[in-house]
């Protein structure tokens, strides 16, 4: 018996399910599933084919029994199927030799045998009318369309008044229009009768529209619940209104991200992953992650010009992700060997900012600097917003409207620079505006339709909006922090310890590629190369590089200065800088994204692999670039003292209540 205040109707407890295989052995379909379903809730199970979502449904239905664990309905273990947990099957499962009325009547007779024939007929008729099948009541299922058949199946299920309605991809085989109508019908019936329902689906929109909670299952073998999303869209819901609810797209993209991630893991598992050691390197088959950005140029060049191979890395594949979150997950689950990442990400993950246990990530190389800027939408420009002072005034006068600005990731320089810039100008980045992480490619669309005020992002997404006339540049990185670190090469510490020579070879290949990217003579070729669909897949004229020049005003949309000026290579540019990483940690602590690590010296020591960089540079004969950069000074002139990060934080006026904590890191060890 459950003693919780709001008793759950269904309680799935620690379920495992395995199937015996023909050739002996067994296949573990589901592992460790825990799920409570409250009365009146509508739950969707979503996942790729073969993830065991139908198996889970069948176990709730009692059609299948778990190998381990129990499923409770009203506190009693489910041992066999029964009419109290009625199933609506994917292929309708109507008896073709019985008419619509007889099919429903059969269920009613069977379950409510004691009621009189008049009452029975009334129940049958009521449910035929409920799904609007009055005129077709005497027809055989074969004479009906798919949508009508599914309506009969739903009517049959509802007619016997189940405690729990289970739907197995109920609308999967229907055309879009019929599906939409039936979804609305089902929603209406569920609302009116306060039904508790569990639905298996692979349709993301259907799940968001119908559910109170969406349970996402990982791929088998051993599928688990990968996440549960609460859908906070109020009921009653109408299809056309739901898509305008602020949560709709974030829920949708959350599910799509999850499904894509599962697909990537599946593809990764399908390939051979034995470590290939060759040429004195511990591993030459690498999966390197990147995002479609101009800053990915070094990776593309290293691949296209054979620099990986030159340094013995024969089997490098570049894996394009759509969001930084995919990179984080790829490093956490080991599907990526190393990756391009925002400069703040190594310390952020090392401090556990990604939500899991702290995962030490190291960086031997800074790949790019600059290339970022802050863009405001045309809607604001038309109201006279040109500068940050204008924007502050605008926010004051439009206090009631939501103000959202786009960032790519909380650990990226875009976020830290944007927040710093806003705060230094008297705008609280959490209270006065709302910063939302969006995939770079989506920001432009959001800026166009006005759902965000502006964004801080890297090329080519930065200048595209300006050239297309959808936004104006209010501040370039030259105006905030010239020469700030942009992207770094990041990899797991345990990986670096297991493959030290590979680490150096990779650093050498990319450092050489950085040198190539820095030469203005190569920029036209870079644009051409990056426009390939393997990398960015946009027109070459959209991807531009230019030299940094202090006298260019990056304020005006027409100016050359609107073109981002990446720094890929040069004195002190590529060496990982402990001071810079410390600054980034102070900023992430300032906005309460991570606690300020009390053991920051240890973290910086481990994250910045200066030794690897120096070895790589020396072996390439590039000793000159090895010296350390001096000092950090941003546009507001507040000095950063690397010996006193806490003092620096306290000197900032706008900040969150940051905490200082020891980050418990395991001692360095091999993967």
């Amino acid at each position, binding site marked *: 018996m459950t003693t919780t205040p709001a008793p759950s109707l269904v309680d799935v407890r620690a379920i495992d399910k395995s199937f015996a295989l023909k050739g002996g052995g067994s296949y573990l379909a589901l592992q460790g599933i825990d799920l409570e379903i409250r009365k009146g809730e509508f739950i969707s199970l979503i996942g790729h084919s073969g993830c065991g979502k139908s198996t889970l449904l069948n176990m709730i239905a009692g059609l299948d029994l778990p190998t381990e664990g129990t499923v409770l309905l009203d506190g009693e273990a489910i041992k066999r199927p029964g*009419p109290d947990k009625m199933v609506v099957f994917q292929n309708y499962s109507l008896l073709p030799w019985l008419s619509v009325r007889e099919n429903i009547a059969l269920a009613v007779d*069977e379950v409510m045998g004691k009621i009189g024939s008049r009452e029975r007929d009334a129940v049958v008729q009521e449910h035929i009318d409920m799904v609007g099948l009055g005129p077709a009541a005497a027809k055989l299922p074969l004479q009906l369309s798919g949508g009508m058949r599914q309506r009969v199946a739903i009517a049959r299920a509802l007619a016997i008044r189940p405690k729990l309605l289970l739907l197995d991809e109920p609308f999967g085989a229907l055309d879009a229009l019929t599906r939409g109508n039936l979804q609305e019908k089902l929603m209406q019936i569920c609302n009116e009768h306060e039904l508790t329902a569990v639905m298996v689906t692979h349709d993301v929109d259907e799940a968001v529209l119908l559910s109170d909670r969406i349970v996402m299952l990982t791929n088998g073998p051993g599928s688990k619940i990968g996440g549960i999303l609460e859908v906070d869209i109020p009921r009653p819901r109408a299809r056309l209104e739901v898509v305008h609810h602020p949560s709709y797209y974030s829920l949708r993209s959350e599910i799509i991200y999850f499904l894509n991630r599962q697909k990537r893991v599946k593809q990764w598992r399908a390939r051979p992953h034995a470590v290939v050691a060759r040429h004195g390197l511990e591993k030459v088959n690498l999966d390197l992650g990147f995002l479609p950005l101009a800053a990915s140029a070094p990776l593309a060049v290293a691949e296209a010009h054979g620099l990986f191979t030159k340094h013995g890395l024969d089997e490098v594949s570049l894996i394009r992700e759509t969001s930084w979150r995919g990179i984080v997950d790829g490093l956490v689950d080991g599907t990526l060997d190393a990756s391009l990442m925002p400069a703040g990400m190594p310390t952020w993950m090392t401090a556990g900012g990604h939500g899991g246990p702290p995962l030490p990530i190291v960086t031997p190389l800074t790949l790019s600097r600059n290339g970022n800027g802050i863009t405001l939408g045309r809607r604001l420009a038309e109201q006279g917003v040109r500068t940050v002072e204008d924007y502050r005034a605008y926010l004051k006068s439009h206090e009631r409207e939501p103000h959202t600005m786009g960032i790519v990731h909380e650990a990226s320089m875009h976020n830290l620079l944007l927040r710093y810039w806003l705060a230094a100008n008297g705008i609280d980045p959490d209270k006065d505006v709302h910063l939302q992480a969006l995939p770079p490619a989506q920001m432009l669309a959001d800026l166009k339709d006005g759902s965000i005020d502006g964004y801080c992002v890297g090329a080519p997404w930065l200048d595209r909006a300006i050239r297309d006339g959808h936004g104006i540049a209010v501040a370039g990185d030259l105006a905030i922090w010239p020469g700030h670190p942009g992207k770094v090469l990041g990899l797991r510490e345990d990986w670096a310890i297991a493959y030290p020579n590979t680490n150096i070879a990779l650093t050498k290949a990319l450092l050489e590629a950085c040198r190539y990217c820095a030469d203005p003579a190569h920029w036209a070729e870079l644009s051409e190369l990056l426009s390939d669909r393997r990398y960015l897949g946009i027109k070459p004229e959209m991807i531009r590089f230019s030299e940094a020049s202090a006298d260019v005003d990056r304020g005006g949309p027409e100016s050359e200065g609107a073109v981002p000026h990446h720094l890929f290579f040069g004195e002190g540019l590529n060496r990982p800088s402990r001071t810079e990483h410390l600054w980034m940690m102070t900023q992430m602590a300032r906005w309460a994204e991570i606690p300020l690590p009390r053991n920051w010296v240890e973290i910086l020591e481990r994250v910045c692999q200066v030794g690897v960089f120096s070895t790589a540079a020396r072996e390439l004969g590039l000793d000159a670039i090895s010296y350390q950069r001096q000092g950090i000074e941003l546009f507001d002139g507040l000095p950063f003292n690397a010996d006193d990060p806490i003092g620096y934080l306290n000197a900032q006026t706008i900040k969150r209540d940051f905490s200082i904590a020891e980050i418990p890191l395991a001692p360095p060890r091999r993967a």
Partner: protein
Amino acid sequence: MVPTSPRRPGVASNPLGWLTRSSGTWLPPLLGTGGFLLLWQILSSAGVIALPAPSSLFTEERTRTLILYPFYDRGGLDKGLFWQTMASLSRVAQGYTLAALVGIAVGITIGLKPTINRAFDPLFQFLRMVAPLAWVPIALVLFQKNQPAAIFVIFITAIWPILINTAEGVRQIPQDYRNVALVLQMSSRRFFTKVLIPSALPYIFTGLRISIGLAWLAIIAAEIVMPGTLGIGFFIWDAYQQNYVGEIVLGVIWIGAIGLVLDRLMAWLQTRISPGQ
């Protein structure tokens, strides 16, 4: 079924026009059968084969009488073809009905219980392979009398397709229907009448239709070796003993025709009982 030509709307009522347009369906079988008979006629007229020509069935006295007077009864075994056929058919009816009842019952049982199926399947597969003629001596030893022995031979020949198809039909009840029954916790009686029988019916009928042909084949075999029985099988055997070759040919044609009629009858029954499946 015959499409009307949109250019000549009046033609549908003209029987001659219908014949012309449907000639594709009736002309080839007519030409094939006619050609075969013609070839036979020529070959036997030329003396290439010893069989009497088809035309001799009408020209010869004995066969003409048999064709023209199927209902004559001179007592004993000297009866018209109608009576001979009825005697054979009544045996088939008895044996076949028995086979259908036992076959469907056993088929459903083994279809529902995999264990029983595994226990008896090798035996069934083995017995199925024994030719009808081989059962005749066993049947005679078993029953000592012609009539029950003949019925037994029919039964044992006809039962296998019914049994095996019924079992398969029961096994092939879609999991969906079984799940519906499970979820609704249907009583076994209702499951039997509302799900099992309707679902397996097409299979059962396929078995019944194959079996009726087999039963008819078996009766001829059985009667041939059971002297002194009234029936079309012994009729042929008798004609052979007395060297009436024309009668043999007539008997064979008669058997084929009856078999065809029985098969069509079952097909028609099938469309009546389980339409659209």
